């Protein structure tokens, strides 16, 4: 058993590049999904019926589809429309679009729970729309939504493991190739599990520091 872990250690470069790829994938798609979510959120609260229904349908529809099937469609299905993406681009696109729906819903929830008074006070002080959003709406919104966004980031990390099926060289894929090369399944996959756990603990630490910041502001 110790010998098996020795083999995994000798392949640490592969495993670490997998870990780095998982981290890169997760961070890029989380940021992109959050930005897309910000664009979608006003549509979810639109007064215009048609806009509201389209946005609702998009978000609710996405939340009913398993991520793995969505990734399959982006990678194997899009070429039918003449859109051929490599595994990195389709993996990133799938993760981003899929999670944007969740982010939009999270932001909508946090937005509607925000008190009206500071915004009205901001308007009364003559803040312009952009400054109002940036200085009055955004900071408490992000602080309030922080923990849920953190949860969603953990979800994104876990979703990124599914991308091993389209041969994206992330952490699970690295563990798989070590196991198939040396036949050390337990050592390879348990190491991957602990690395995933480490990533999630980092995010949880980040969330609790945001929480402390939010508590200090209150």
């Amino acid at each position, binding site marked *: 058993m110790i010998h098996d872990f020795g083999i995994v250690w000798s392949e640490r470069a592969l495993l670490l590049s997998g870990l780095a790829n998982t981290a890169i994938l997760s961070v890029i798609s989380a940021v992109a999904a959050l930005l897309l979510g910000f664009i979608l959120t006003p549509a979810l609260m639109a007064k215009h019926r048609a806009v509201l229904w389209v946005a609702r349908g998009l978000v609710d529809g996405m939340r009913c589809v398993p991520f793995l099937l969505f990734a399959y469609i982006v990678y194997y299905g899009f070429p039918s429309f003449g859109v051929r993406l490599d595994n990195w681009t389709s993996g990133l696109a799938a993760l981003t679009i899929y999670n944007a729906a969740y982010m939009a819903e999270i932001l909508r929830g946090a937005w509607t729970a925000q008190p009206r008074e500071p915004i009205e006070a901001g308007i009364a002080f003559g803040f312009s729309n952009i400054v109002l959003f940036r200085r009055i709406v955004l900071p408490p919104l992000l602080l309030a939504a922080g923990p849920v966004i953190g949860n969603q980031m953990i979800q994104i990390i*876990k979703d990124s493991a599914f991308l091993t099926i389209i041969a994206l060289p992330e952490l699970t894929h690295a563990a798989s190739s070590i196991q198939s090369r040396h036949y050390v*399944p337990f050592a390879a*996959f348990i190491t991957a599990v602990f690395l995933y756990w480490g990533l999630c603990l980092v995010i949880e630490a980040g969330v609790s520091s945001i929480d402390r910041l939010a508590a200090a502001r209150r």
Partner: protein
Amino acid sequence: MTANDVLAILQGAIVTVTLSVIGILIGLPIGLGLALLRWANVPVAAKIVALYVSILRATPLVTLLLLLFFALPNIGVPINPVSAAILALVMNTSAFNCEVWRAALVNFPKDQYEAAQSVGMSAGLRFRRIVLPQIVRVSLPGLVNEMSLLIKVTPVLAVVGVVDITRAAVRIGAETYEPLPPFLVAIALYAPIVFVLVSLQRWIERRQTLTEAAA
């Protein structure tokens, strides 16, 4: 894509639904048991459960499934794809269920428990008559939410060779060189199942806020 292909995906749907239901039915009581271990603060066990939940919640189902499927035979436990799939689902969902149950237990009003104690109810009876009915109601939305999450990760089971919706769709796509239609059929099967669970969760939540408002 022929009618036979659609039929093959439908057969895969039966496998998907069966495995999900088995995973949910076994995962619910195990999650409750784990939550009780932590709630009662059983010496070593509570710590182990906390660690188990923390690790399992961070582990992607694919990684867990590959670990079980390849490593168990390696240490002399023969396992077939279906049992590996069920074991992975149960381990995954019980960790999440444990947190839902535990939240309900932690928020359970202590005075009711003490009142039951003072009228001489035994520990088992207290749990069955006083605690359980109320925490089931509080946990229900969270548990249904976890069920919909579980169903959304089941396509992963195809990775170790379980012939579910996804594997059937992948096979047909490879045979016909037209991957899009079978995947769309697969999504058309998945989406309503998840949608029903999500709507159920919303309905329960709305009904509970209504009864709370009335009380």
